[in-house]
């Protein structure tokens, strides 16, 4: 379990796409953004939300589990990597297995791409590019305590229900305080996980 995680707060997203632009600046995939930025309320408001890899922790990484060639590495710190270019056969199993719709397949290259939490940066203590530049901290990288210091009312949701399937994730979505059901199918056991962690 990592001490620092991404907290995604759709209530703070201004849809500016600084995260998308910054993601392209990562040395390991320069020129290619891994972030899905959706305008989620088109026609009614300017609401937007970034989707990045949630780094599923329980069950560990459905994308990695279904990979026929074990191309997707899962680190001891819970970071789920991009498929290794040497191993990936471009079958797209991971694309279909991911409950959040995160990995994508480049059909020209027959390779999978997805967010690896800027492993080259975060493993050296730097912030992932998206969370570094995000003007509003809609993408916040840090510990839960650090988040609460900045936003005392924030509540993190890190367990999601998809039909019968429960998924606990490394990264979390922020919901307003007192709204455990704010994310459809999702609720918070963050504090319990945090206690397990310590």
């Amino acid at each position, binding site marked *: 379990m990592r001490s620092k995680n991404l907290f995604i707060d759709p209530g703070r997203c201004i849809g500016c796409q600084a995260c998308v632009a910054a993601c392209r600046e990562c040395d390991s995939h320069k020129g290619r953004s891994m972030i899905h930025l959706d305008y989620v309320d*088109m026609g009614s408001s300017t609401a937007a939300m970034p989707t990045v890899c949630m780094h599923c922790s329980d069950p560990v990484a459905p994308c990695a589990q279904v990979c026929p060639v074990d191309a997707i590495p899962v680190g001891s710190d819970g970071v789920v990597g991009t498929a290794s270019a040497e191993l990936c056969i471009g079958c797209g199993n991971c694309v279909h297995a991911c409950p959040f719709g995160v990995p994508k397949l480049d059909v020209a290259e027959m390779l999978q791409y997805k967010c690896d939490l800027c492993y080259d940066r975060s493993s050296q203590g730097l912030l992932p590019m998206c969370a570094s530049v995000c*003007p509003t901290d809609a993408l916040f990288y840090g510990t839960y305590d650090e988040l609460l210091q900045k936003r005392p009312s924030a509540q993190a949701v890190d367990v999601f229900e998809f039909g019968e399937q429960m998924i606990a994730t490394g990264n979390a979505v922020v919901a307003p305080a007192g709204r455990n059901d704010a994310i459809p199918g999702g609720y918070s056991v963050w504090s319990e996980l945090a206690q397990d962690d310590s």
Partner: protein
Amino acid sequence: MTRRPLLPVLAPGVASFRKDASRSGHFVSGSRGETRVATHCCYCGVQCGMYLRVSSDGKVFGVEPRDHDINKLKLCPKGVTAYQQVNHADRLTKPLMRDRRDEPLREVGWDTALDRVVSEIRRIQQTYGRDAFAVYSGSSLATEKCYLMGKFARVALGTRHIDYNGRLCMVSAAAANKKAFGVDRAANPWSDMLESDVIMLLGANVGECFPVATQYFWGARDRGAKLITVDPRETPIARTADIHVPLRPGTDAAFCNGVLHVVEREGLLNEEFIASRTTGWEQVRTGLSEYTPERVGQICGLDPGLIEKVGLTWGRAAKAMAFHARGIEHHIQGVDNCLSVINLCLATGQFGAAGMGYGTITGQGNGQGGREHGQKSDQLPGQRMIEDPEARAHICRVWGITDDELPRAGTSAVEMVHQAEAGEIKGWIGICNNPMVSMPDSARINRGYDALEFHCQIDFFLSETCARADLVLPGTSWAEDEGVSTNAEGRVVKYNKASEPPGDARPDWWIICEIARRLGRHADKFAFSSPRELFEELRVASAGGQADYSGMTYERIEETGGIFWPCPAEDHPGTPRLFGERFHHPDGRARFHAVEWRPPAEEVDRKYPLRLTTGRTVAHYLSGNQTRRIDSLVQQTPRPWVEVHPSLGFANGDPVTVTTRRGSATYPALVVSSIREDTVFIPYHWAGRVAANLMTVDALDPTSRIPEFKVCACRLEPGSKIDEPPAPPVPPGVAEYPRVGGLDREEPSAPQGRGTGRG
């Protein structure tokens, strides 16, 4: 023109990550031996810190977030990609010239180019007089260059005709600040917002135009403050505001008077502050009786209850701050609009401490610095007024000229173009601006430039304005020179040089000094060999003025998080917060100004029943000369749109023709319920057939001479074919930028651009 083939049908999840469509070749992957040059962003008035990544062979190839006091690592999509301008294929690398306007531009050497400028200046000034030659400058230049442009016009050319593009930006706020406070600067550092209880934001699309400033507004909210937004559109920052006031464009002064009416009626004034620190309250109070919430509600198209609510929320706040931007400033009543906000702040005594204050958010990076050191038609360095005898004497001493030799006040930017149309101005040097896109009523602006006998333009990309000039001189981007910039807080920061200019491009100050040297008039006063030498003279010139930089050095600015002016001595810490004990009028008191709301220059009628307002979108900057060439920004927002309310009966993506008394264009409709029913919006960053300014009105504020970009009358009709945005102009021999905008066939998705999550 070839059409993009229809998208192949692919399974969900395939190939939809955003990649560089066209020019990924100019990316260099992370290399060993790179250096990181600490600098600031070239775009808006926030002036975020950033590092430019420079390869071992001296090329700028990337950006790294910088933990600077202003932005704390944060950047917007323009800031992240700003570095991609530096080695862009479209850069101007050689002077370009033509003998007649119907010929194409051709490359020439510097000697030929400079001799042409000099001979044209001489010919025009000898034939028509000194004032027949004009200089039109810009505020995206570092302050040293802004200072030089003013000195060049007045000393080398001896013309009174110099102005700058801040005339299209924040001059209304500047004029109002001078009237009310006796000084033109924001009252507080933005960190003061964090201690505020109520923040009111008027006509400022902060989430898109100043994205990184959002952290201050929301930082206050996270600590319990209430946010009030006033805008005809529910912009990203307005979406979650505690109170959003969607007023009708052109009614801001009525609204502010209405709020003050409620504050006064409820006894929420700060009588002690009014008595001890201001003058003129009685005239304001007398006028307020007219502005009942009911009447104001009618004028503004609002529920009167909303005005009551804002009045009570503001009036009851222990600490409140107000900020505004172009939304209330771009009006024939721009100065009065700003004064009506200031009246509210003064009447409730909201000055002089953290959490209390007022400010305008400057649009251009150096909007503040660029307007205070002498390239404004009526000002001299240090925010001195050119008609003030004492100011003239000081500057004449610094420049070593006589009072006779120093011209009087000139006219404003738009008026200078109108004077060209009328044949009064015959020659023109433009730098750092693109009026073909940015000035109101483009057709008339075109006529003005057409009438010039000689037009020289200095830039680092071939703007639409460069593309029609007789001579184009290649200057530098902000990354190729050093200099200072003053952000919206009044904080002076420093740009550092990260690479050499490409090809034969030269620093702008070198170009100007070289013209002055060859021209010969006071040539010895332009013997500058570096920006530092210019800065040293600027320090002396500003000493004793309002905007006193005399205590600043490059080293001090670098060692701190930037220095707020005034800074009159090298051991002076600078002045982050103003108005703690006194305002800057001689008696130390602020002035109230009674404001009477007036309707906009062009009211709606049966033929033109809707209000057109224009503005910006997050992926582009001002006239788009810089951002319409950057892949990811063009992919995010490839073209303009017309934003309309669902009640007008259009479907999203429909071709809709917008017509005003001056022009007409067809855009795809973005149908959203977040805009008023009686208001339509077009972003103005594009040129040619789709330029929003084909339609805007060139009515000017009588004091600030700012155009009324924010409201005119229009009508909408179903269109047949959507007008295509033209590709940005390029120098000879350079392939036209891929027409990403022109090939776009998707419906608009949101004001902030296209999402990346489809597929």
